[in-house]
C-alpha cells in the first residue's frame, strides 16, 4: 500500500508573475489521508489545482505514478460548493451521473452499469431519496454529499476535496468528515483535502501540510501539531489540548 501516487519535486506554482509557493517537495503515498491546511489565500487550492492538472508548475515536476496495469490513477474531485453555478437546473441524480461521463466516453450513451454506479454512490452517501430533487434546492450538507457522491461515482483511486466543510454547521461538518474518514478507512481511498479549519481536520487526517505565506511544512499530525510550531506559523498564542483522544486547538489570548 505504501508506494507514492504523486510526487512534487522542487515545484514552483505561480499565477502570471505572482509566485504562490516555491521549492515544494513532497510525496503523496497510496492510502494517505492528507490535510492541506492554512489561512485563506495561502495557496491551498493552488496546490490542489496542480495535483488535478489544472495548473502547470512554473518550475519543477509533479510526477503522477501509474497504478496497476500501467493506468493513470483516477481522481475524484469535490470542488467548493460555491464554484458550481446553480442556474443549471440539474437534479441530484444528473449531477452524480457526471462522475461517470469519462467512463462512458464520447459518442456513447449512458449504460445500465453507469446507472448502477450512480445509484450506489447515492446510497453510500445516504441521499438516494434525493435523486430527483434539484441540486439548487438542497441544504449545504446535502449539496456536499451530492458532490462527494459524484466524485465516488467516478470510482477514483484518490479523492480530492476542496474545503468540504466550508459554510456548514458543526453537525454537518462532523458528519461530512466522518463520511470522508469512512471512505478512507473502509474503501481504502487515498484522500487529500484542503481546509482552513485546522480543528476539524486535525482529528481525522493522518498527515498535515501546513501552508502560510509561502512557507510549507508537511508531516504526521504529531510532528506538525505542536504548540511551538503552530505559534511560530500563525504568530499567535496557541494551546493544544487532548480530550478523550480528540485534539482541540485554541488560539488567541488563552486563560486557564
Amino acid at each position, binding site marked *: 500500500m505504501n508506494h507514492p501516487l504523486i510526487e512534487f519535486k522542487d515545484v514552483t506554482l505561480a499565477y502570471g508573475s505572482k509566485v504562490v509557493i516555491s521549492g515544494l517537495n513532497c510525496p503523496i503515498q497510496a492510502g494517505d489521508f492528507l490535510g492541506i491546511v492554512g489561512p485563506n489565500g495561502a495557496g491551498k487550492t493552488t496546490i490542489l489545482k496542480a495535483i488535478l492538472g489544472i495548473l502547470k508548475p512554473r518550475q519543477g515536476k509533479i510526477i503522477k505514478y501509474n497504478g496497476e496495469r500501467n493506468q493513470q490513477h483516477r481522481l475524484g*474531485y469535490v470542488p467548493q460548493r460555491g464554484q458550481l453555478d446553480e442556474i443549471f*437546473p440539474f437534479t441530484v441524480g444528473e449531477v452524480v451521473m457526471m462522475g461517470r461521463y469519462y467512463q462512458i466516453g464520447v459518442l456513447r450513451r449512458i449504460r445500465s452499469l453507469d446507472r448502477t454506479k450512480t445509484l450506489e454512490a447515492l446510497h453510500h452517501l445516504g441521499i438516494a431519496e434525493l435523486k430527483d430533487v434539484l441540486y439548487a434546492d438542497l441544504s449545504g450538507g446535502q449539496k456536499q454529499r451530492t458532490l462527494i457522491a459524484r466524485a465516488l461515482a467516478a470510482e477514483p483511486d484518490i479523492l480530492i476535496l476542496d474545503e468540504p466543510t466550508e459554510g456548514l454547521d458543526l453537525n454537518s461538518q462532523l458528519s461530512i468528515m466522518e463520511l470522508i474518514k469512512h471512505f478512507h478507512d473502509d474503501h481504502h481511498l487515498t484522500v487529500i483535502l484542503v481546509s482552513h479549519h485546522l480543528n476539524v481536520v486535525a482529528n481525522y487526517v493522518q498527515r498535515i501540510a501546513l501552508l502560510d505565506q509561502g512557507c510549507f511544512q508537511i508531516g504526521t499530525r504529531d510532528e506538525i501539531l505542536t504548540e511551538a510550531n503552530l505559534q511560530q506559523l500563525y504568530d499567535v498564542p496557541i494551546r493544544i489540548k487532548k480530550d478523550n483522544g480528540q485534539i482541540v486547538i485554541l488560539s488567541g489570548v488563552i486563560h486557564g
Partner: protein
Amino acid sequence: MVEIFRLPFMQYALLASALIGTLGAFLGVYIVLKRMVFFSAAVAQISTAGMALAFLLGFNPTLTGLIVTMLAVVLFALKPSGEKIPPDSLLGISYVGAFALGILFIAKAAQGAEELQHLLQGNILTITPEQIYLLGATFLAVGVIHLLFYKQFIFIAYDPAMAQTQGYHVTAWNLLLYFTLGLVISLGIKVSGVLLIFAFLVIPAVTGLLLARKMKHIFSIAILSSLASVVGGLYFSFRLDLPSGPTIVAVLLILLMISFFVKKKRDVFHG
C-alpha cells in the same frame, strides 16, 4: 393566417427564420447558462465588422464574416492575453473596436448606409433559395455535433474543473462549442441581421430558463418559443406592414414576459 405563408417569399422567410431561430435558441441556452451573453454580442459585432470589410474590399461578405468570426472565437477561447486583461474587458474592447471598424468600413464602401442598415436589421423577406440551402446544411452540421456531444458540452459548461480532472480537453471542447456559435452568428447576421440573431441567442433561452424545471426542457422550451415568435412575428409584420426582424423580437419579448408572470404565479403557488 395560412394564406400568408402560401406566398413563396414568406415561405422562404419562414423557413430561414425557423432554421436560425432553432439554432440560435439551442445555442443560446449555453450562452445564458455560461453567463456569456456579452461574448455573443462581441462575436456578433466582430462578424458584422468582417462583413463590412468585405463590402469595402469587394470580397464575399458571408465567407469574410465567417473567417473573421472564427479568428475571434479562437482568440477568445485561447485567451492569449492571459490574466493581464480581464476576459470581460477583452470582450468590451473587441465589441467597441468591431463596432467602430464596421462603421468606418461601411462609410467608405460603395453602398454605404444601405449595407449598414442591412447588416443591423437584415431583411429576411429577401432571402434566396441558395441561402436557405446554406442554412439547412449549417443546421444539419451544428445539430449533429450538438446531438453527439451534448453530454460533453453541458458537463464542461457546468463544471470545467471537474471535467478537466476527468481528462477532458476543456479548451478544445469550448473551441468546438464557440465554432458552432460563430458559424450560426455569422450566417445568421447575413440573413437576418445582428438584431434578430442576438435576440434569438438570448431571449428564448431566458424564457426556457424561467419555465423549465429540468435541463433538457430548457432547450425544448427555448426552441418552441423561438419558433412561435417566428410564425407570430412574420404574420404580424405582414399584416401590420412592419419590418420583420423587429416584429419577431417583439413577439419574443412578449413570450418572455408571459413566462416571467407564469413563473411568478407558480412560485407563489408552490410557496
